[in-house]
């Protein structure tokens, strides 16, 4: 984690060195800073930061892709006269067990259109998800478990 903050510090230095602090200069600084850190990895020693960042980026990309995709799907359903959806409530067994994990997972599920975390069972083993397009419940379960949950746990564990 220390590298992350170091990276942010570098981006700030970059921005300051450029004379103006703006979104652009910060992002540029971050990218260059990451590069510099990666290059100097042998000096500072190995860190999970360098593995995690790509994972996080991939995760973000995945999330955004899902977001746009499912938004479009919902949009299509909304703007066209007919309703194609097949909503339902699906029980998803949870591998995540920490509070934070459950919360993040549930929120991510909610943020993607088409699915909505309704409730967590009292024993925290099951997440009840309302999905708009339930072709079969198992398919939904599977996509959540192998989609968000797996990637999320991979990222934070």
């Amino acid at each position: 984690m220390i590298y992350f903050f170091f990276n942010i510090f570098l981006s700030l230095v970059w921005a300051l060195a450029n004379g103006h602090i703006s979104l652009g200069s910060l992002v540029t600084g971050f990218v260059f800073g990451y590069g510099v850190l990666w290059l100097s990895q042998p000096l500072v020693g190995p860190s999970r930061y360098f593995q995690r960042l790509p994972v996080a980026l991939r995760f973000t990309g995945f999330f955004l892709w899902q977001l746009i995709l499912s938004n479009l799907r919902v949009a299509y359903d909304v703007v066209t006269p007919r309703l194609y959806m097949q909503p339902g409530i699906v029980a998803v067994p949870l591998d995540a067990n920490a509070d934070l994990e459950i919360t993040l997972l549930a929120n991510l599920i909610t943020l993607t259109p088409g699915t909505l975390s309704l409730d967590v069972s009292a024993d925290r083993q099951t997440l009840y998800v309302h999905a708009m397009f339930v072709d079969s419940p198992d398919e939904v379960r599977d996509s959540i478990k192998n989609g968000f949950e797996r990637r999320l746990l991979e990222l934070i564990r």
Partner: protein
Amino acid sequence: MSDIVTIVLLIIGVAFALLASVAVVRMPDLYTRMHGATKSATLGVGCTILATAVQFADIETTTVAILVIGFLFLTAPVAAHMIGRAAHRQRVPKWSGTVVDESPLAQSVADAGPDSVESQHGSAGETS
């Protein structure tokens, strides 16, 4: 360049915001409406805020913008979850097209019948 980004972000954002509203009006039951309201609206509004950050492109605006976006993305799902959970526990009726309900409440809803759900605190109240 930044103008174009701004315009694009604005168009996307506003489109999604409108989409959310249309969804909220069009969808047949609470749960499906919520899909529209929480996600499309958050995405859309997030885009407009991002457009602001791009437009002004200074550190303070950016900070605030990121703060607001972060906050929106943090709170929207929690709020949606809370509403959905409460509605679900209150047995707010589901659309007739609902294909499956694996929740433990499903059974008791069936027992109670739809009327008891409907009658709660004047949910039929509309304008006269």
